[in-house]
């Protein structure tokens, strides 16, 4: 089996008396798409925040390709190839759609010593940014301020920013949340495309069961902050705890019936 590209060992965070992520040890490998499921408040987003560095763990360690990155800042983790799309849209509202994406391209590729040249003269930056906008069907609104976009387009821009970072670990936090039925496939197709590149590791928080079935190589289940199940999709989906979480059937109800 390939080396894990990302691993958490005994990862824990407490807020006062509440343990939001509880001793989670889990490894993710390149070429694998792992879906993280769990009820609201299970700690999925908090787990993401710990891995991408927005939160510091109370205990435990995070490894990226074998290196301890627990102490790194979010920007250093981004530079190391970890990319994150956020659940709640998290953009630069008064900058244009193109500027939003160009910033991510610029962070990835750098501009070296030419810092004070006019930003418009960096043709390659804008070109690359436009490619990402094409991929997310946003070229028509490239010059609109991000805040002026409808919700679905903001979600797409969120994903475009992640693409522009060109990470090797993709973390999607409910990328299709609140999107209409005809918009969601754009995002899912993109995720599928990334999946074809076996050097990439994909983590996906998702609630829609049809999406989970179509994409997942593996499912892990978080409940009350703890990792309660981990395995192949069919296997995990049939576990009583998952059925309880998603179908509202208590674990013992079926036996009784």
């Amino acid at each position, binding site marked *: 089996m390939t080396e894990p590209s990302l691993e958490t060992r005994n990862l824990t965070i407490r807020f006062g008396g509440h343990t939001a992520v509880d001793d989670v040890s889990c490894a993710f490998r390149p070429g694998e798409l792992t879906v993280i499921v769990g009820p609201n408040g299970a700690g999925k987003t908090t787990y993401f925040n710990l891995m*991408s560095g*927005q939160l510091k763990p109370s205990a435990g360690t995070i490894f990226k390709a074998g290196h301890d990155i627990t102490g790194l*800042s*979010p*920007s*250093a983790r*981004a*530079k190391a190839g970890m990319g*994150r799309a*956020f659940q709640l849209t*998290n*953009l*630069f*509202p*008064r*900058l244009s759609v193109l*500027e939003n994406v*160009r*910033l*991510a391209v*610029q*962070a*990835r590729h750098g*501009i070296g010593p*030419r*810092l*004070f*040249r*006019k*930003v*418009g003269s*960096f043709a390659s*930056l804008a070109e690359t940014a436009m490619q990402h906008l094409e991929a997310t069907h946003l070229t*028509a609104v490239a*010059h*609109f301020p991000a805040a002026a976009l409808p919700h679905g387009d903001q979600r797409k821009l969120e994903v475009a*920013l992640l693409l*522009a*970072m060109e990470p090797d670990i993709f973390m999607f936090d409910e990328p299709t949340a609140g999107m209409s039925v005809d918009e969601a496939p754009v995002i899912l197709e993109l995720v599928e495309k990334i999946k074809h590149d076996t050097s990439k590791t994909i983590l996906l928080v998702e609630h829609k069961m049809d999406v989970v079935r179509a994409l997942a190589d593996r499912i892990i289940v978080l409940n009350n902050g703890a990792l309660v199940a981990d395995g192949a999709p069919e296997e995990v989906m049939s576990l009583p705890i998952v059925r309880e979480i998603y179908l509202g059937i208590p674990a013992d109800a079926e036996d009784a019936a």
Partner: protein
Amino acid sequence: MSQMELASGPTADPARPDPARNGRVIVYGLVGLIGLALAFAPFLFQDVRAGQVAARICVFIVLVASYDLLIGYTGIVSFAHTMFFGLGAYGTAIALKQMGAGWDAIIVGGAAGIIAAALLAALIGVLSLRVKAIFFAMVTLAAASVMLVLASQLSGITNGEDGLVYQVPRLFKPAMKLMTDADGKVLKIMGVSMNGKITAYYFVFIASALLFWAMMRIVRSPLGTVLEAIRENEMRAEAIGYKVVAYRTAVFVIAAVIAACAGILWAVWLRYTGPDTTLSFSIMIDILLMVVIGGMGTMVGSVIGVVLMSLAQFYLKDLMQLAASATEGISVLPHLLEPDRWLLWLGLLFILLVYFFPAGIAGTLMKKGNH
């Protein structure tokens, strides 16, 4: 083709109706006019006071624009901008006093002021730009107060509250003859004597224009977009790979250095440096008001803010004197328009400006800020 179709032409893009375009034309037109007026100020406005106002406008445009780099572009609230301005001015003034009126004094003193400003800004930035905005603002307030106290207490070097009076290089002295006619007298062009006053003004004007141009380059560079990204969403800027603290510290140092440069110009122009002309908090408040009136996050807004506010500060009293004498005989008006009440009217003017231009004059006209 009908008249209607002709009128809609290629500029009217139905997908992007652009009400901001007219605003941009007005703003840039206004700024262009101000630039021209400043470029020919010694010829257009020949009395001594007008020359003083024009030079102050040049220096303050640089000072206010550099402050806008912090507050408008990056979202950093600092009250220490006059401290950096003062470091540049005092560095130059002390060197001119100690070393005599030479260019070497301006270069050595100015460089010392700039280096001190840069080091102090880097120190404050590294130590406190991580903390919340309000704490950072408090730290800068404390630093600025300390500097003000130092300037008045170290009277051996700074001459305390009285400040320093000194000579400037011969090139800037009124007695210097820049051009002479056949008889060896100072040549007059359009009634303006070609003496040291002219060279001093153009020294200030050209240096200010260069500094302003440099700042325009910064905000239009890739760095400028990163600064705006930090203002817009600090957390996401960090998440896509920008070291927010490093960028903030860098822009804080850049703004400090430019403020110190403005201080050098001010010291050379005034031939006097004291706490009231450089370090006082009333100047800090002026800077804040100018940036808000002009429009935060718009470099050109600082030009408009500085001009409007300077004209009001220097000429509102005169205008009211005129109005008061014109309304003489009418019951209450002359009392209201009494020149001593000019601050009341200035305050009223601010309230109206903020009400009608919530994002500042340039900001509102260019529809940039809606916050």
